């Protein structure tokens, strides 16, 4: 589980930063580079990325251990592998959403009142994050699926590699159990995303004893 969480952190952090930078520098070389990264990042198979990173960081340069679990160093390569794909998706979403939000009236209003650029961006970002979150919640499913592959590349003793072992030994009760656990995690995350909407956007907070205070 720490693997998926670490990947989520890496994905959101890297993707978020890249997305904001490329939205602010729209049309520049940086933007182009980020978009190329994003396009390749969504297309690359996660297990192959894992192998490449192993070959480079573990076999070639010997910086991080290639397999196993234990220290933070062990976590780095698998989490990076799993996180990069998410970062690619996140950067595209953040960029598209932020570009749209920066055209809103309140952003122009804030500019007109002479707020510094970073404050304006911070205001816009909060609203831009809403659509990003809903999609990232869905993408968490892909992250769980990817963890099955990543775990088997890095010999990570987690739920994913347990699933692989269970299937190859045709241990169906175990397979059922694992799928159930995966599905529960997935649904819980969806719930967390729905609850987080209210934190980000007070307009859709649920009123006590009633339905959502506003539809959107």
């Amino acid at each position, binding site marked *: 589980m720490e693997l998926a969480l670490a990947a989520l952190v890496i994905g959101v952090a890297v993707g978020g930063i890249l997305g904001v930078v490329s939205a602010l520098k729209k049309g520049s070389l940086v933007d182009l580079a980020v978009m190329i990264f994003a*396009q*390749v990042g*969504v*297309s*690359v*198979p*996660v*297990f*192959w990325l894992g*192998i*490449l990173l*192993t*070959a480079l960081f573990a*076999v070639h340069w010997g910086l991080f251990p290639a397999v196993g679990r234990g220290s933070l160093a062990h976590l780095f390569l698998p989490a990076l592998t799993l996180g990069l794909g998410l970062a690619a*998706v996140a950067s*595209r*979403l953040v960029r*598209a959403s932020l570009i749209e939000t920066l055209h809103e009236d309140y952003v122009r209003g804030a500019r007109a009142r002479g707020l510094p650029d970073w404050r304006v961006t911070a205001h816009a970002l909060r609203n831009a994050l809403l*659509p990003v979150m809903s*999609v990232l919640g*869905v*993408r*968490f*499913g*892909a992250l*769980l*699926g*990817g963890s*099955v*592959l990543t775990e*088997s*590349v890095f010999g990570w003793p987690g739920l994913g590699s347990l*699933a*692989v072992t269970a*299937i*190859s030994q*045709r241990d*169906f009760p175990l*397979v*059922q159990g*694992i*799928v159930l656990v*995966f*599905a529960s995690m*997935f*649904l819980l995350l969806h719930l967390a995303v729905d609850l987080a909407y209210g934190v980000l956007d007070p307009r859709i907070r649920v009123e006590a004893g009633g339905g959502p205070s506003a539809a959107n």
Partner: protein
Amino acid sequence: MEARLEGPSASHWLGTDNFGRDLWARIAFGSRISLTIALTSIAAALGIGTLVGLASGYFGGLLDHLLMRIVDLFLAFPPFVLALALVAVLGPGVSSVVIALTAIYWTEYARLVRAITLSESRRDYVTAARSLGATHANLLFRQILPRAFGPLAVVATLGIGTAIVAESGLSFLGFGVEPPAPTWGWTLAYGMRYLRSHMWLSTAPGLAILVTVLGFNLFGDGLRDRLDPRGLVRTTR
């Protein structure tokens, strides 16, 4: 068998594996498997999803409720995990991979077509056709469905890329099409054993997957710009 684990040369463009099999030939043949599976499962998902979406959005009521709960059931599982479980039950082979991939992708089309049907069936041109005595079939397939073609083409093209990645992921784990078949995923997994000495054996198949998927994704993005100006298809990948 003499030419084992050779590097790239004029006779073997990408070198050979530990049995002396030409890597380029394996990748070229592997593309048949990957593309066949991806295209078949996306076509099936498109067909099933479209029919369900049309029925659900057009007739509404109890049928809509029932169909959408079935969709929710499929959406409750992380896609790759569901595919893995299905292949585990069905056993390896081309047809079980196709079934598994169809099962995880059809919901996307069903929801898209349902949304389009819901909004389109309230439009004036549909009411006009209905008042002229058009049958349900005419309204569904001649009036409403064509409006979904653009978004569907975009989602399907992007879906082919995703399906190729999922298929190679399954065969990478050894649960896809059985090994003597040169699937990209298995060739890659096999090459991993020689990562230290012959990196190329696992790099080349991965590159094949990347280039193919990148191609479909770029094509899909291009289609989106041309066919989906209203932005019905969200950037979900």
